[in-house]
């Protein structure tokens, strides 16, 4: 049972995947088919994103890796803006540095699956846009977007 619940993210992925796939297969309406295709693709986005997450991990942003230099550079930049501001920013930079030291022991999530999904989302948008454009043309030609009616018209012509 704990296995079942512990992997709940995968169950969501599979549920969405099968829902989308079923809609693609079972629906006659072309727009609904495209919606099904979208759900199907989205489930794969979730699959990737969920596999990149490390429990307790944070966003993989390297902070203060060259601690001394960046500290100096930042406070220098701040002073040139103005003395009062400089004080505040100096303090902020110091806080920044502290967290930077901690960051060495921090756990990061894997960013690559998320990055890959950015590309896949773009591909998905392009696919949907093209599919909708085709549906517009089909509707202009046939006057309907129900697949069975279209096939019926083709058979008679």
């Amino acid at each position, binding site marked *: 049972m704990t296995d079942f619940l512990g992997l709940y993210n995968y169950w969501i992925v599979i549920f969405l995947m099968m829902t989308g796939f079923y809609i693609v297969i079972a629906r006659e309406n072309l727009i609904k088919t495209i919606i099904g295709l979208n759900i199907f693709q989205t489930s794969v986005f979730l699959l990737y994103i969920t596999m990149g997450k490390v429990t307790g991990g944070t966003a993989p942003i390297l902070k203060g890796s060259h601690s001394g230099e960046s500290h100096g550079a930042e406070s220098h930049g701040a002073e040139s803006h103005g003395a009062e501001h400089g004080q505040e920013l100096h303090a902020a930079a110091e806080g920044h540095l502290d967290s930077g030291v901690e960051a060495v022991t921090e756990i990061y999530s894997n960013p*690559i699956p998320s990055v890959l999904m950015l590309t896949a989302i773009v591909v998905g948008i392009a696919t949907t846009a093209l599919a909708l454009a085709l*549906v517009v*043309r089909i509707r202009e030609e046939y006057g309907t977007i129900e697949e069975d009616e279209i096939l019926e018209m083709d058979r008679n012509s």
Partner: protein
Amino acid sequence: MIEQLPVLVIVIPLMAAPLFVLIGNRKLVLLLTQLVCWTVFGITVSLLSRMQYGPISYELGGWPSPYGIVYNVDYLSAFVMLFVSGLGAIVITYAPKSIDKEVHHSKHTLFYASYLLCMTGLLGMCITGDLFNVFVFLEISSLSSYALISLGKTRRAPLAALHYLIIGTVGATFFLIGIGLLYQMTGTLNMADIASRLQAVESSRTMLVAFAFMTVGLFIKMAVFPLHTWLPNAYTYAPSVVTCFIAATATKVSVYAFIRLIYVIFTPQFAFERLPLDSALMAFSLVGIFVASAAAIYQTNIKRLLAYSSVAQIGYMLLGISMSNVGGLTAGITHMFNHALIKGGLFMVVGCFALRIGSLKLEDLRGAGKTMPLTSFAWVVGGLGLIGVPMTAGFVSKWLLLTSALSLELWPVAVLMLLSSLLAVVYIWRVVEILYFSPASHLAKTAKEAPMAMLIPTYIVIGSTIVFGCWTVYSAGIAHAAAESLLGITQMGGVQ
């Protein structure tokens, strides 16, 4: 400059496509597209000629290998890129008159841009060594081919394109799921890196699922028999030029990706010994050859006839791959090349008929042998190649396949292959009889011979099927080198 060649193959057509949309002048863009296609062909020729010095590995942006994206050029990828870009170039040279008739003038620049993008995607799938990059290029080529198919004149074209889009996207998404699962197990996307880390996790169920998803995804793209339903409509209703290019190249590049999947990423031991994929492949391809060839016999549209024949021919390539020895693999790779030439040439002949007769129904083509003798003769020569008559390219690959089947003592396979060639005789002869020995239809009676601008490229492609039927150094020879290096890689992997 020379060391940048691998990336230029991709960058030149990719950058040219949006630029040409901005230029917008139909005639200028046509000339520039032809220039780009021939340039890319020249680059692939020079890449293949450099293969004797060993494979090339190009790191994009200078990022070292397992972290950045790598472009790999070896015998196999250079060979596939060569015929993809070569047919792309010759088809676009043949294209202007046909496009003029079949595609609305306002769409011409967009047509050329999509054509270049499609070629970019196909070449990219060949050259890249990064698995996710394969998916991206697969989608680039697929999306542009959906757009190209939808440009057909009849109202069924957009519907055929949409069906292809839905099935194709499901296939590509399956491939993506497989990549995800592989990444989950190995933590890398570089093909060689995955292969080296696979041994440790080979027995896990995730690997089986990943392999299954990727195989089914590519089967859809290859149009292997039970998953071929998108292909006949897409080929039939697309503009003739698009059918020439896609039929000659797109399915072969998917076969190429499948070869990479089995022989470079997973090992044949995994695919064929742990899983019974070899016997499954053999069964699928043999059933596909027979069902699709039989379906081709009953078609009344010449384009649809050739489309079913394409489904059958994919079966021969997979049959070669399923044998998993050097002979079978050589036969499969050679048939990719030979079939690209033969089917490209035959669809170019069909494009000539479409231009002059205006209909592709077999009954309207009756008697065209008298009014269009040169075009009809090209059909006869190309058809002989498709059947596999000696002295044609089709014979070479079928002979290699047959000897390989006999060396493995697969007698039933050999017999079935010969029988299936008889089915090809039937559907090719049916068209020949209609062209030469039937009373002329009223459309064929008034038809003129196709223009030289289309006949010459057609005859170059059809003639090359005869050349590569007699002289196989550069077809079967390179395929043999590619097969040896593929199996060599996996043997080394097995030792480690």
